[in-house]
């Protein structure tokens, strides 16, 4: 079963970090990615540009409206994700607990629905 592990953290914190510390975190993310590739959990992952780059799009009555910024403003923002394949929720929680994001922020684990096409 697939789970999406979404990493939420305060995005301002990254910019304030000294370069050496940024490098340390990046190293940990690379090591984590390699680890879950080896264990067969890894399906995909991406880091996101911060929310000032976000654009929200809606279509209402056929009219496209575009607004600056994320859909909801929150204290912690979605900064990246891992899509993983796990046996069950316990397995997924173990993977999420190893993710560096769980230490500098939090990781929301959501099961993926797989629809069968008729």
């Amino acid at each position, binding site marked *: 079963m697939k789970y999406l592990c979404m990493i939420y953290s305060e995005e301002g914190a990254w910019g304030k970090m000294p370069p050496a510390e940024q490098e340390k975190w990046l190293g940990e993310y690379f090591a984590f990615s390699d680890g879950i590739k080896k264990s067969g959990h890894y399906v995909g992952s991406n880091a996101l540009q911060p929310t000032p780059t976000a654009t929200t799009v809606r279509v209402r009555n056929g009219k496209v409206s575009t607004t600056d910024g994320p859909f909801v403003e929150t204290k912690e923002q979605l900064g990246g994700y891992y899509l993983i394949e796990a046996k069950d929720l*316990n397995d997924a929680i173990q993977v999420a607990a190893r993710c560096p994001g769980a230490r500098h922020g939090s990781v929301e684990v959501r099961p993926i629905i797989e629809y069968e096409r008729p």
Partner: protein
Amino acid sequence: MAEQVRHMVDAVYRSDSRRVLATLIRLVGDFDLAEEALHDAFAAAVERWPSDGVPGSPRAWLVSTGRFKAIDAMRRRARFDASVGELARRFDAAANDATELEEGDGVEDDRLRLIFTCCHPALAPDAQIALTLREVCGLTTEEIAHAFLTPAPTLAQRIVRAKAKIRDARIPYVVPTHAALPERLDQVLRVIYLVFNEGYAASSGASLTRHDLSGEAIRLGRLLVELLPEPEAMGLLALMLLHESRRVARTSPTGELVLLADQDRSLWDRDQIAEGTALVERALSSRRIGPYTLQAAIAAVHAEAASAEATDWVQIVGLYDVLERVDPTPVVELNRAVAVAMRDGPAAGLAIIDALLARGDLDDYHLAHSARADLCRRVGRTADARRSYQRALDLTRQEPERRFLERRLHELGLNV
């Protein structure tokens, strides 16, 4: 004859329905389907046992009947709804594994699986309690709602959501691995202790004790010790038994709160004390000593004292010192301060409580203010005592405790 069989079915339901359910959940892979199968199996027993005779192993008969009923239900539904097809396949695979049906260790493991699944930390805390009482203890939704002063539809909704999460997020039906066990066991113990406390000192409402919940928590504690004799499981059971032993002495015939020091100790339940004390000793001898065991050890020291004055306060403070290291919380510091006041005099305890309150951790905790009030009263600082009783009174939500504090305030008023 039919009447006798009916009684037999009722007795088996009371003694074994939870075990049968626990095994059916594993075989069927779904809580709702397993509950339906359990119901169908007992209905079949009522129908068939009078003519066929009561089977040699009623439990195995019920599991296998329930399993077939579930297969039927599954097949019927699969014809209408393609989405249960996957579940049906999984289920067929499990059902084919007939060896798992046999009685033995597996069946006891099923009950542990059920407990750990109901107390899974991914479920909301309220839902863990509701689900445990519903599935493990077999209480009805209405009974649980009544005990927790919650509307039944709210509680039913909680259970429905929890079951949906177990299914959709795939919370596994397993006993946690060795590495995860201590943390997961803590979670189970917390749920049991919450149920106990809800019964022992209802957080709101007129009655100080809701006996049924405490009894249910003790039953759960016993089951857990039987299935998984870990020291802290024993410690929690001991703690609950030792608290429960004082139930009758804790309230006066008119429903007023009676403090430990003023209780009629001849009313304490000696059997529960003996059982609790023996469990504490077993847990302590494991050398893996946790907070429940330490709290139970403290309760055991109280239980063996003939009076409040005769209590071994030196030993109690010593146990609190260890507890404070294992579980450094403000509430533990507060309780230790009260014990220090008994060992070294009220002024010593007061100094600790004042420092604690100055840190701001316990400012909203009514027992911190009533403890401070009591010590102020004993050193003759009446105005301070009155202020603290008033603060405690503003914070408490329990009727008997309100009346107790009002009585104390009234006594102080007359002394001025």
